[in-house]
């Protein structure tokens, strides 16, 4: 089970600046990717309806030791990554 939390306002492009009345441009985390030893095993596309500071919990089958990397991609293409090592003991199951 993988849990991840990003600190992000998730601007939808529908809110206005209370002082100037101008629309605040859309700025979201548009995609979250999970790579297991360099292979994409899960990804999520996020739109306006995902809360600020998005939390996500999902599952992976642990088949081999290695690295699990989470990549958050924002509207302007910025990539932020976080990774964790996983060690699988015992014989490989199926």
């Amino acid at each position: 089970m993988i849990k991840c939390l990003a600190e992000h306002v998730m601007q939808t492009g529908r809110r206005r600046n209370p002082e100037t009345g101008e629309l605040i441009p859309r700025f979201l985390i548009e995609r979250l990717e999970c790579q297991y030893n360099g292979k994409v095993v899960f990804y999520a596309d996020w739109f306006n309806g995902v809360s600020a500071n998005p939390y996500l919990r999902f599952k992976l089958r642990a088949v081999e030791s290695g690295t699990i990397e989470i990549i958050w991609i924002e509207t302007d293409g910025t990539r932020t990554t976080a990774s964790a090592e996983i060690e699988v003991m015992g014989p490989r199951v199926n």
Partner: protein
Amino acid sequence: MSRYRTVMHPTHIHRRKVMLSAGASALALECGPLLAQTSGSVPPDELLATTPQDAALIVNRRKAEQIVANMLKGRALRDGLIEATVPDIAEDGSAVPVSFLVNCSMKNDDYPETVHVIGMVNPTPEVARYHFTPACGEAAVVFRCRMHASSNLSFVANMADGTVGMTQRFVSVTASGCI
């Protein structure tokens, strides 16, 4: 003066009653043709909306229903494919905890390629799209979504073998997520 008003002659009351009933029948006559005209078709939802906000919600819901119909493409729904957990009442629409689980073996073609989450009255109805592979072991996700108003949340799972499943859950939203 009011003391005199309370004492009324019986014939006076009688005449009033007569006048009232005459008025009612005149009203019925006036509305008659109008009712006949609309009775054949259901009035559009927009006419039932009492405020502009209500009307906006109806427009959003139509848009969301169209999006869901485009995803389903008229395919038969698989029963009990998705188990979704949502709160009955969400006090804060800007972070509603939502979770879902797709009941499948996650082997060969029996896994969901995508699961869509749609807020049925959100201005941007599609909330999130999750893509799974058999390496996930189980298609289960927990996250928090924004909700504009009390409405259904729809979960649509597109399976790799071309079948589809849908679950809808109603959430009462106390304070709008203002998306």
